[in-house]
Structure formats: C-alpha cells, structure tokens
C-alpha cells in the first residue's frame, strides 16, 4: 500500500469518527460509500472538504464525486493525478 492511501485511511477514520475501525480494516478496493463502513452522502461531503483543504482539489460535480469516492484506491488515484501539492 502506498503512502497516500495509508494517509487517506488515517484521515477518513479521523474526520468520519470511525472510532471502531483501524486502517487495516479498510479495504482500498471495496465499495466506499454505502459499503460496510456505513459511509453515506454527508460523509462524502466531509471528504470533499478534506480533499480540497489538504490536497487543493475541488470536487463539486456529482458525477465526478461518485467516481472519485467509489473506492479508496479511486480517491487515491484521483488525488495523485490532480494534486499539484502531492507527489509520490
């Protein structure tokens, strides 16, 4: 697992208050929204804020949002492809 994905797992646990979840519990290829973690549309907005604040990427389009937040690895790829601040 790359550094960015590991970082995102930690951030998700913190901002979504997934107190009983550890980074190892999150499968980066599993469905993120509506999946086992109980993440829904408001959580997505919280993640949108985090992605803009920490990586400078604005996601304000529903179609892009659905694609980006489909899995954690999709999110990680999107950030890597679009962020000027993150390089790995």
């Amino acid at each position, binding site marked *: 697992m790359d550094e960015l994905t590991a970082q995102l797992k930690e951030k998700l646990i913190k901002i979504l208050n997934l107190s009983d979840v550890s980074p190892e519990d999150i499968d980066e290829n599993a469905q993120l929204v509506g999946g086992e973690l109980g993440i829904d549309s408001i*959580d997505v907005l919280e993640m949108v804020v985090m992605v803009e604040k920490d990586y400078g990427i604005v996601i304000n389009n529903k179609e892009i949002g659905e694609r980006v937040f489909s899995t954690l690895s999709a999110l990680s790829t999107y950030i890597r492809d679009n962020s000027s601040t993150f390089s790995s």
Partner: protein
Amino acid sequence: MSVPKTYISGLGIISSLGNGLTATARALQENRCGISPLQLFPLQQPPLPAAAAIDLAESSLPRTHALALTAAKEATHECTEAPQAVIIGTTTGGVLTTEHHLTAGLTDPQAYQYHGLTTVAEAVAEQCGCTGKAFTVSTACSSGAVALALALQMLQSGEVRSVLAGGADSLSYLTYFGFHSLQLVDPEGCRPLDRHRCGMSVGEGGALLLLTADRPENPFAELLAAGLSCDAHHAAAPHPEGKGAQQAMVTALHSASLQPEEIDYINLHGTGTPDNDLAEAKAVRNVFQNPPPLSSIKGAAGHTLAAAGAIEAVTAAILIKDNFLPANRGLQETDPELQLQPLLKTQQQKVSSVLSNSFGFGGNNGCLLIGRTDHYPAPELTQKKNDGLTILGTSCITGAGLTEASMDRLLHNSKVAGQLPLDEISAILPAKNIRRLKRFSRMGLALAHEAHRDSNSNEAPDNIFLGTGWGALSETHDFLQKLRETDEQFPSPLDFVGSVHNSAAGQIAILFAATGCNITSSGGDYSFEQALCTAESMLTDDSPAAFVVGVDEGHPHFSPLFDPSINTTDSLCDGGGGFSLTRKKIAGKVRVRPLFFQRSFAADSCTVKADAYDLILAGIPAADKKKGEKQLAQLRQKTGKSTPVLLYRELTGEFASASAIAAVMAVHLLENNVHHSLQQKRILLLGLGRCVCATEFSIQ
C-alpha cells in the same frame, strides 16, 4: 361533533419580495425575484445569490427578532385584544448578532442576551401584549408550518381563542455557509423543478398569522388542517420516495375531510435541490392522481428556512383573497423525471383551497391546508381531552450518572450536578448510530433509548417531543470556529447538519423508526415544559405512545456566554430527562399534566389547589433568583405553606433542562411511595423566573 373553525384574522409578512402584504402580493403577481448576490454581511469570496429581506426598519434587536416583530405588527394592527398565545418557528434566533460578536471577540454575556431562540417569541409576545404561552418551535425548515400546526391544535381543542403564529429567520454565516458546505446552493440562483437545478438560494423573512376561533368580520381565509410526519430516514436527506412528505399530505387532507381533487393549488416546498424536488414530486404524484396547478415560490423568495412555511401560508391566503396562482420563478426547462407541470406564468383564477408543503432536516415534514372562508365544513372532532399523559418509562442523565445512579442520590437529597463523561453516555447506544453525533444528540438519543427500555414495552413510541434551551452547542461552535479559522473556506458539513435544534429528535426518530409528529421546542429554562405542553396539545386519545425529552449540553465556551444563570467560574452541569408516555389511563402509573404556563405572572389566575401536594419541586434559575423567590412565595399562599419545597437546581446544577430531571424525580418519588409517606400522591413541579409554569404529577 365538529371542531371549531380556525380563522386567519390577521397577516404579516416581510421577505426579499417586500415588506407587507400589499408589496408581497404585487411581487408575486408580477413574478418578481428577490434573489441577488448577498450583500448583508461581508464575505471573503464573491457572494452567492441569496434572498435578503428588503425595507426592514433599523432595530436594536437581532435581525430575526426584527423580522418577526415587523410581521407581528402587521398581523395584529387591527387587533383590539392581545393574542392568548404566541408560537414562533425559528432556527437561527439571534445567531447573526452572535456571529458578529464572536468575530469581534466579545466576552460579555450581556452581548449575547438575544442568542436564544426563545427571545424571538418573547419579543413578539411583549410587543403584542400576550401574557400567556410564548412558545418556540424549531424543526429546521418546517418550523413555520409546524408552529401553525401546533397553533391549530391549541385552537381546535379550545385551549385558547387566539394565537399569533408563524416563523422568522434571518440570514447568517451559519446558514449561508452551511448549505454551501452541503453543496446545496445553486450558484445561478434557485431554479426549483428545473432539469438543471442544483440547489437553493438561502433566504430570510418573517411571517405571522393571527389565528382566531371567533370569526372576525372579514377573515382572510381559514386554516383548515395540518399534517405532520417524520421521515425517520436521514439527518439531512429526504426519504427518496417522499414517504414522509406523502404521509403529511394524506394526514392533512384526512383531517380536513377533503379529497385530493378538491385542492385547487399546491404550493410546493420546492427548494431547488435535486433530492428534495424529486422526492416531493414522487410524493405529490402518489397523493394526487391528477395534480392540480402547482409551483414553488422559492425561485422568487429564496428558501427562508423557518419562515418558509409561514411565508407560504400567508401566500396561500393572498392567493385565495386575490384569486391568482404564482409562477414557478426560475424554471427554464421542466425536469421530465419529476412528471409534474409547474406553472410557468402567474395565472388568474379563482382559488378556494391551497395545500402547502414544508420539509426540513431531520426528515421533519409539515403540510398545511388553507381554504376560502365559509367554503368548507368544519372537520369532525378528534377525541382529545387534554387531561394528562400516563408515564410508561423514565430516564435521566446527570453528573452522577444515568437514571439509577442519579435517582439514588436525588431521592436522598444529594447533589448530582456535573457532566457525565461522553463515553458513559455513548456506551448504551448502538455505535453505528452515534458516530457523527456530538454531546447534545448523544444525550437526547440515550434518554429516549433508556426511557423506552424502562417502559418494558414492545412497541416503540411514534411521536417525539423534545425541549432544549440551547440545542447543539458543540456543532454550532465547531462549525463557526472552523469557518473563522479557515477564512470561510472549510467549515464541516457534518457540523452544520448536526447544529439544528431538532438534530437530537431526528436521531431518536431514526433509531425508533418513529414516523409520527416530531416537534422540538426551545423555551430557555422552560424548554422541557414547552415540550410537555406541546405533547399535551398534539396527542389525541388514540395517538400511539410518545417520547418527551428535555436535554441540554454544557459547552465550555458557549454556555457561560449564552445562559445568564451560568457563571464563567462555575463548573459546567448538563443532562436531562426522558419519558415514554401515552394518553391512555393505566392504574398504578404516574400521570403528568401541565397546569399552566404564563409569561407574565398573575398569582390570581394560577389554578393550583390548596394543600393538594406532598411536595413542590421548584426551579428558580440563578439569573432570576429574586423574581423566582417572590413568585414562589405568592404561589405558596395558594398551595398552602406547609407543603415542603425542594429547590431542585441546588441538586442538579444550573442548566436549561434541569426541570426534566426534577420531573423524573417526581415520578420516582411517587412510584417508590411504599411507606405511603406521600399522602396526597401528588407532586407539583414549578418553573419560575421569566415564565411561571406548573406541572402536576399524580398516581392513583
């Protein structure tokens, strides 16, 4: 037998469409739009479209208060007698003023004296001379409609002859950035039901209706019926099939004994958000085989939040009086998925009945039916005696612990003041339900959870009445703090959703799938009593069981600033009490009955029996010590001086919902009366200070 009719005898309105009935009617006729880039307060980014009220006179009070007072003045200008009650729906209260003061770093509590929602209703009551109930309903964007629904019940039951009711909300950083953080603001301006709609335009306004049981010479219209429901689905998103919205419409039609085809026009909630408009369209199509003409006026007036339901009720009265239907301003291309044909232009035609929808966060739905005067028969009387409620289960949270630990101490006159660690509260709740909740909502949820458990009932209550003086302080604080810290860029959408006063009641509804009436009251130190009175007014003889909860969180920064009874030097106290209740009488169970609630205390008119009580539990908030002590002395002249008095705040500590804990204590004392030391089997709970209210607990 039929219920007395409810006449709309006075109207007052102010919004982005204008100040007053005439200006509003003209703007609607001409299909004008009040939405433009926000200029009301400075912003760091280019302003989004919003709907600021126009022609509002300067006032020393916060803007929500000024909007409510302006509407109240117009609604009562022909009034010769003061209304017997005032009910205001509001979500923001004095928050715009609070935001300015917080930014300026003001630390003097005096500067925040109008923060509380209840101060809006108090200001209106003061202006129009109402000495009775001045109640506040805070159910997010359905507040105005729910306030009118409660007023209707109070009039139909004969409890009062006149009520001034409606809603008011001012624009604020909280709502402007809150809806923006949820990506629910359309940068092009609100386009309800449009194929390309992408959100609302946040607005502000005030609208009040003087409702009377006595027919004035020329009533504007009649308030025929109301239907309330809760989605019990999600904190912010509507039920995707519009299930709760449908239930509210069906209940309203049924209460008025009207068929869907008898409705001339539907005033949609129609906020312009993709989800709301779709869910509402589905609900409308399920209720109406062939929907009548319909439109949303939010493309013209913006979404005025707690005022919306009242603004649209006033609009309905205007349409019936002036015989026209307003256009769905902002709509360019109708969304085919909705399968509705909103009015594209103002239409001149006779209007006799209007159905008006209002929905809010927490899945809180309110539907009102407004009809031409003398055109519809009075509906059949629903059996309702207002003779109290039977308590099936209780719960409380204090600094000493949950119910058992708290009662162990309280029944021995020991202090329970303090704050219970959040972990101990959370431990009794399902983890997946509380992940996103902070202190206020977790406490509210825990109280309902424990009260239901204590009732040993298989059936969960379907109606929820929650009282809170200050609501979700943690979420409100955290949202505003992040907003300031990140230069208005990154406040938390989760905090905004959780910041509404009805967040806890919405969570209780989800946990218990409670789809009935769901009302959050906010009356400062009398919030629990307001919730109890509201339950007494709303529940019919055959209503399913209900929760009544009183809860407040102590917040290290906000509580000492907002609550005048809390000093910065004191350690914080919080908690509350919860009840599961039913209308049915059950032998051996404690019954609770609100006796009176007055803003302006008149000992002569207080109906308490002499020597009828074993104990008086008196609540005197520290800020009103002298006033409260004087009132207590006057009341003791009537109850008999030998009746012992317990000043319960000495045990619970100072916080708005302390009376809910005292109420649980009263129930436990009566239930545990094994040695028959309580001969009268009656306890009186008194709230004193700014208001005087009495609640009787008895066991037979």
